[in-house]
């Protein structure tokens, strides 16, 4: 009788007569919002690529597809993603296992340190690595050449390998976080019984632990794959100067070079379709490969697992962890702040060469930099509030009202998640620069619309999770107590999911603060975001100022991240 609980709950909300009730109203609004923000941009891309003056025209797409430059970009994208995904999975898995299942010391500290790269905007990391390992001017390369007396640099970061390395540094936490979580929730008796049955340590890892965390690995690897396929910042900063393009950077270059002409945008749109096709293909492939073997032995509560003694390996492995952390976190961080304090790029990092002027410049003097900070705050807060509210509403419709077409809503909400930011930006340009009698181009509103579409999936996901915790009977109880559907929503459901909504706000606010890809195609003279400002100041060669602004961005993001932790911890404490 309990199994039928949730369809029964939905029954109530679905039925109430023919007049437009609260449930139907929410459904209609949700659908309209998703169509405007999600369906329209995608439809506009497809239309503009394949139709010219209302008739089908395959020629543009065909010519784009056969252009060797584009094919090279596609091949680069595939190569980079493949290596980032494989290596990132291995690295993430290794550290997750080390921290989750071995007796390595300083676990708490390391756990929080390993998540830092996750918050670090990858394009700022790429900037830092460029400053360290650019073939001639990079600090490390210069030091290396001075030491050896030669003219060959230690490592050229402006290569495919360099791009893979930097993306790897910032994407491995996807697997790390997923697998650590799974290891924590896994019932340790499963491993213990294997030991009792006579299996040795390695066999347990190979035959028990690994298969059980496969779903977690798959989820993490999938995130890395999608992210690196559609990633723009790192290849843009490290690849442009050396003529290395990926599909996202190629799309940007096409549109940028055509300085916003319609033809350029159409060409960009064609490549966008190609990029989406690659992403979809990758997803399908991954799903196929990992279809076998799903386990549900991972439980919700955490237990104390049996820890593997590292003995003689303890110190070397600890060292590996610290070296890795220094490379991924501390070195780039010090570089950004160090260079941000320098009087000019290239001078040695000595106290005598330090100044506060760059920070003074970006915070008080440069109107562009100050505007960008203000714009980023405005956009992040506004989009986070709107997206959180709308996402909660759509999640409510999907989880609680369960109308006939809820599957469509679900797909529409998650769609932008698998559409690369750069593609979404192209779609938004095509939709909102006059195609429907409304030209938002060069205004901040076009960026806002893009952000809302981009982060809808985040908010829907977090809102669905909290709504599923609210049992149907709580709302039914208030109905039988004399409250209308709308009153029940206000008095019971909303207060109960409020903590989830606050967390959802930060889940959008933080990535929006460090957003680069979408804004870079959409910004106008007065609507630069922080990411755009850092990127363009850096491109113009004002390296020290760019680093100072990047430093400011990092501080804001870290503060936001701390606030989020504080908020979610408070909720757990209750």
């Amino acid at each position, binding site marked *: 009788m309990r199994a039928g609980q949730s*369809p*029964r709950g939905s029954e109530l909300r679905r039925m109430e007569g023919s007049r437009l009730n609260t449930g139907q109203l929410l459904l209609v609004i949700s659908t309209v919002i998703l169509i405007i923000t999600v369906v329209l941009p995608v439809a506009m891309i497809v239309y503009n690529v394949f139709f010219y003056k209302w008739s089908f025209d395959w020629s543009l797409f065909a010519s784009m597809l056969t252009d060797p430059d584009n094919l090279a970009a596609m091949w680069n994208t595939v190569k980079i993603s493949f290596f980032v995904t494989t290596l990132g999975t291995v690295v993430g898995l290794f550290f997750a296992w080390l921290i989750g299942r071995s007796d390595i010391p300083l676990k708490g500290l390391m756990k929080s340190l390993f998540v830092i790269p996750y918050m670090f905007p990858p394009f700022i990391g790429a900037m830092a690595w460029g400053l360290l390992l650019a073939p001639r001017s990079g600090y490390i390369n210069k030091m290396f050449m001075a030491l050896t007396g030669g003219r060959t640099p230690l490592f050229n970061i402006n290569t495919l390998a360099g791009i893979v390395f930097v993306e790897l540094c910032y994407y491995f936490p996807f697997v790390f976080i997923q697998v650590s979580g799974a290891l924590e929730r896994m019932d340790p008796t499963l491993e213990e019984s294997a030991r009792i049955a006579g299996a040795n340590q390695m066999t347990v890892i190979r035959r028990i632990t690994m298969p059980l965390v496969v779903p977690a690995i798959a989820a993490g690897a999938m995130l890395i794959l999608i992210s690196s396929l559609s990633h723009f910042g790192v290849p843009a900063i490290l690849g442009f100067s050396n003529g290395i393009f990926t599909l996202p950077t190629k799309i940007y270059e096409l549109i940028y070079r055509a300085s916003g002409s319609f033809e350029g945008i159409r060409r960009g749109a064609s490549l966008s379709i190609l990029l989406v096709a690659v992403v979809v293909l990758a997803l399908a492939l991954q799903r196929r490969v990992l279809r076998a073997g799903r386990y549900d032995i991972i439980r919700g509560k955490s237990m104390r697992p049996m820890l593997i003694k590292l003995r003689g390996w303890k110190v070397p492995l600890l060292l590996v962890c610290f070296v890795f952390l220094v490379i991924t976190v501390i070195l780039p961080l010090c570089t950004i702040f160090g260079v941000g304090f320098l009087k000019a790029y290239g001078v040695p990092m000595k106290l005598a060469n330090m100044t506060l002027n760059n920070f003074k410049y970006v915070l008080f003097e440069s109107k562009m930099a100050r505007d960008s900070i203000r714009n980023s705050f405005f956009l992040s807060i506004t989009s986070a509030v709107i997206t959180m509210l709308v996402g909660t509403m759509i999640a409510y419709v999907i989880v609680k009202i369960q109308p006939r077409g809820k599957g469509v809503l679900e797909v529409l909400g998650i769609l932008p998640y698998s559409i690369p930011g750069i593609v979404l930006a192209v779609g938004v340009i095509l939709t909102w620069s006059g195609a429907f009698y409304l030209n938002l181009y060069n205004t901040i509103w076009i960026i806002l619309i893009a952000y809302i579409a981009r982060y809808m999936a985040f908010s829907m996901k977090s809102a669905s999770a909290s709504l599923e915790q609210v049992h149907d009977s*709580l709302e039914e109880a*208030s*109905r*039988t107590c*004399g*409250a209308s*559907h709308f009153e029940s929503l206000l008095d019971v459901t909303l207060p*109960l999911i409020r903590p989830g909504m606050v967390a959802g706000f930060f889940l959008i606010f933080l990535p929006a603060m460090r957003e680069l890809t979408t804004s870079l195609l959409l910004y106008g003279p007065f609507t630069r975001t922080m990411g755009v400002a850092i990127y363009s100041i850096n491109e113009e060669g004002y390296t020290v100022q760019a680093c100072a602004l990047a430093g400011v961005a990092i501080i804001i993001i870290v503060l936001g991240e701390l606030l989020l932790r504080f908020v979610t911890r408070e909720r757990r404490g209750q």
Partner: protein
Amino acid sequence: MAEVRLDRITVQYGEKTAIGDFSLHVRDGECLTLLGPSPCGKTTVLRAIAGLAKLASGEVTIGSRVVASKDRRIFIPPEKRNVGVVFQDYAVWPHMTVEANVLYPLKKRKVPRKEAKEQVDDVLRQVRMGDYAARMPFQLSGGQQQRVALARALVASQDVVLLDEPLTNLDANLREEMRFEIKRLQNETGITVIYVTHDQDIALVISDRIALMDKTGSIRQLGAPEELCKNPQDSFVYRFLGLSNFIPVEIVDGEMRVRSGAKSIPFPYPMPSGMGDGPFYAACRPMDITLSREAADGRAQAGTGPGAGGALEGLVTRVIYLGNIYEYRVQVGDSEIRVQQDSFEAFKQGVFREGQVCALGIENIRYYRDMEEVS
């Protein structure tokens, strides 16, 4: 106070019919229990009354008001039906204090604050939660939360309160206490109570009448608890209301015998009328069987024929001590019979051991043509 009438209602979830053509008349001020194995649609009946499920056909009337009718296109939403509901999981709102939970229905009905406060104090005292008014639900035990839910339902309606298995999640002691509590409250307020459960013990204690439903969702027997126990209409009712033995018997040559593969054993009791030829069952409760040694004395082999006194004989195969009760499993022919004996009696008489032969004395035998599954 109000009567509730269900007139040939049908409720469907998608393609599945949860309740079909179901009629029931709940009298004003009575406590009626919908009893049946899960799932039999008893919760659905409750939801149809509360307005939480939609009718595919039929009519629901509360008091003199038709609250749902498919034919007349009436559907009064739950908030306007004036029905209190206690949900199986209590559904006490976790973000409100006990007082705020109970006050909520009055607030929605716009009862003046002072009057509402008095009413809440009253009802909280009634459910013995007066000292907990300022607590949050997570500070309460399951039983206390259940009482808050009950108080809220009582405040929500003075006419009808619907309870959906509210005691299932409580431990045994609390369950016992709460069933008397509910009965007491119903007596004091005279409210109409419709109670849903699959637990016949609770049903027997709190009900004025019981409607026993089978798995298809139809009512097998409707009546006072005593009536159901004394005159179970069929084997389903008999089996559902308590532990039972169904001994397969048949009439051979004008004599009733226990059906058994190898040899048939005489069943030395008066023959029932109206059973005619063919196999049927003799039903009895474990507590209505007495075991004795006398008749079986001196016999090595059990189950081979009538004992010295013509009593039914069996072999004790298992002895289980349940504290206040001794339970025996006795083999008679091919069938195993459950016998329960008060421990005190058993000690007085001498406890049987496994492998001993005994004579069975059965009282209150009822005869049924079939032995229906109840779950």
